[in-house]
């Protein structure tokens, strides 16, 4: 596969709030087009690609695009704003205390940017905690020292173990998990805490949008592996979904969980996700357990996280392979440990309707078919899942539960 295509055009990523009026949006001079996240009073309406003319995008065009893509939401937001219609009562006095948790491993370049976006959000009620997961050197520790955040080194490898450790170390009511390759929106923590004002909310997932389009794989990632889940608030629970459908609720790059549940239900105490043989699926399994036990998960798109997609094509291939392994490992777990036969139906349906279908489309060279190597990587992942599950289970048995923290190192 070619790493860099000649015809690739870089795209600037911009954000605009229409509530500030009909303003032209300047586009940085070395870009000819922009991916614009259009919002109204902070609520995302659409994320559209627009061409720049003489270094700017006309304000009227922004309104027209928003109208074309999502007229109903734009209309409602504008009218509600003007007429002062507020659905929800003010909850600012009922927001829970929170810890922003970043799990990282040897990525100080990304982490620095992430921490820079976290620091302005810290307050009396919002703390931050960096879990350095089985690092190869102390670069992360050195970096974090310059920031007002707590640092902890978790030597047991695996993103989920790092999350589980964070749940034990934090003292706040909720945990707001994010990844190190993410830049948080200004209001991220405030927005992600909001749905917790309702005591029936067990977890909240935010929207994850692309941070940059500098490489072709980043376009591919957004198209195939992306996190797009629309911009309508909705809740996920047993009344509207089966438990194995929990993956639709959101992603680990932007999710909040009640700490009491993370501890009592052992949401993250499993050998899953990055750094383990399952590569991914820790967030999926946590959401699965919550829905199955009858809890409510809210998708809250006003909480935005900007995710930097992988730049190299080989990375993208590895990630999709990891998705294949992770998702089907979790499904196997649902079947074998929870006796949930819906996992079988879902696995068969997905494989037939998604993986096989895309494989056929790619082989037949249908329009907009995905690159064959990416599909193949994902399918290989699916077939590796049983083996991965076996390894994961035996390692869990060997390692036992997460040991108690060896002294709190601030």
């Amino acid at each position: 596969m070619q790493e860099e295509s000649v015809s690739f055009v870089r795209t600037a990523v911009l954000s605009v709030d229409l509530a500030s009026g009909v303003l032209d949006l300047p586009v940085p001079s070395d870009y000819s087009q922009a991916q614009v996240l259009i919002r109204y009073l902070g609520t995302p309406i659409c994320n559209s690609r627009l061409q720049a003319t003489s270094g700017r995008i006309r304000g009227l065009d922004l309104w027209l695009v928003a109208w074309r893509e999502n007229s109903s939401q734009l209309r409602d937001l504008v009218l509600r704003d003007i007429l002062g219609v507020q659905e929800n009562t003010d909850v600012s006095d009922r927001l829970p205390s929170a810890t922003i948790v970043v799990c990282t491993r040897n990525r100080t370049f990304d982490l620095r940017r992430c921490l820079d976006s976290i620091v302005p959000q810290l307050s009396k009620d919002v703390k931050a905690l960096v879990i350095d997961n089985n690092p190869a050197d102390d670069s992360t520790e050195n970096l974090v020292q310059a920031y007002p955040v707590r640092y902890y080194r978790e030597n047991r490898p695996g993103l989920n173990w790092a999350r589980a450790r964070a749940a034990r170390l934090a003292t706040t009511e909720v945990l707001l998990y994010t990844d190190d390759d993410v830049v948080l929106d200004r209001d991220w923590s405030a927005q992600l805490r909001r749905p917790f004002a309702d005591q029936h909310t067990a977890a909240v997932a935010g929207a994850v949008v692309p941070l940059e389009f500098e490489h072709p794989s980043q376009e591919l990632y957004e198209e195939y592996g992306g996190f797009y889940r629309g911009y309508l608030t909705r809740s996920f629970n047993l009344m509207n979904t089966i438990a194995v459908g929990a993956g639709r609720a959101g992603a680990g790059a932007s999710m909040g969980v009640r700490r009491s549940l993370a501890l009592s239900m052992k949401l993250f105490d499993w050998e899953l996700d990055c750094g383990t043989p399952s590569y991914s699926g820790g967030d999926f399994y946590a959401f699965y357990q919550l829905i199955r036990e009858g809890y409510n998960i809210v998708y809250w798109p006003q909480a935005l996280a900007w995710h930097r997609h992988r730049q190299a094509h080989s990375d993208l291939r590895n990630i999709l392979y990891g998705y294949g392994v992770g998702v089907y490992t979790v499904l196997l777990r649902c079947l074998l440990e929870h006796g949930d036969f819906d996992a079988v139906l879902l696995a068969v349906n997905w494989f037939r309707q998604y993986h096989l279908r895309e494989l056929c489309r790619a082989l037949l060279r249908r329009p907009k078919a995905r690159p064959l190597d990416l599909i193949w990587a994902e399918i290989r992942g699916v077939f590796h899942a049983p083996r991965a599950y076996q390894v994961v289970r035996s390692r869990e048995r060997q390692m036992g539960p997460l040991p108690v923290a060896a002294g709190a190192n601030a």
Partner: protein
Amino acid sequence: VIAISVVLPTHDRASLLAKHLLQLKEQSLPVEEFEVIVVADGCTDDTAAIISGLNVPYRLTVLQQNPGAGASAARNRGAALALGDVVLFLDDDMEPRRDLLQAHLAAHGKRAGGVVLGYYPMQPPQKGESVFTKVDRLWWAEKFSHLALSNHRFTFKDFCTGNVSVAKSAFNEAGGFDDAIGGAGAGEDYELGYRLIKNRVPFQYVPAAESVHHSTSSWDASLRRATEEGYGHAIIARKHPEVFHEFNIARLSRLSESMLLRPVWIALWKFPALAEPPATALLLVARILLAMDVQSLFWKLQGILRGHAYWKGVRVALRSLPNWERLAQDAPYKPENFHEVDLDVSRDLIALDDFIREHWPVEAIRVFVSGQAVGRIPPLAGVEALSAQHVRACLVERFGSALLGELVTRKSHFSSPAAVTPSKPVEHKKEVDDSACQSISGEPRFPR
């Protein structure tokens, strides 16, 4: 002086009841200000003995009722003896929070003569509970979060007897619960709620009036409940035809209208036993699916089986297909009497609160924009009168395009980029809002 009387019907749950009666001792409201009236509804366990053995500091009355009279009769008898001006209907599986009575009374103090709906979430999830209990809990949670919305419009279906207080005067004026439903059917609370709303009794939802609802549910219970609902809804629809369409009983018409299914439908009403063999077979399959935890398929079958159970209840109440058809044909789509007003958005929106107060009670609105009719907020049976907040939300939801058109043609910020001050976007936003509001009001800036 007794200000609030707690009426607590119970049926064979002596130990649970005793626990909750003891918990009522801990109320923040002084014990002299409330009383508890327990109505033992055909109890066959040792309820009476256990209660009489309790030592409680508040006034406690125990009434006995013969089996079969039902919860409606029990509540009516309790309410008849109540000394307080406010009657709180509490279920025996409620664990009252400390401020429950205080919060109910305070809300009545703010708005006398009305209904106060309390908050009663189910107990937190437990290991090993059935999926039906989980779904019930989610259903209640969703119901309460709807009630808590600031533009919620109360309907008769918000009146549920678990934890609700009514001013005694309003209760007596409405005539209490209907004894005909309480015995074999469910929904007697909806029925009373309907008459209260019709009498224009104001409703409030007070989350601080909290009790924990200890309830578990099973599949058999949910099917039995469906039959009771079918029975209850049929009786309510016969009594108040205008709410027919508010219940699932109206949706049975889908069977009636299909050419293919109509003969089956007729046969089933004549010989309900015909439905039993297939229903039993489905039940068996569903049981296997439930045991194997194939929930995606189970819920589909459960829908059919619940529908069947519901219909059985309807059939017991109505007896024959012609009776149901008469009900369906005669059911009006709107209430008989309602107060309708004309609202011109261009003129009345700016002073909407005054407009609504002036014309109270507004139950339906013909909506105009600059003299042009654009539509109607229709009258609804069993729903409280519109407040300004309801009207605004309704206008956004149903007439959004017309409203937005009005804004655009009245030269608001869409077509006046000259007014834009790019350096201070936040301040500008404020400006946009004001100009937009003024342009809706019309007259001052853009005389017609």
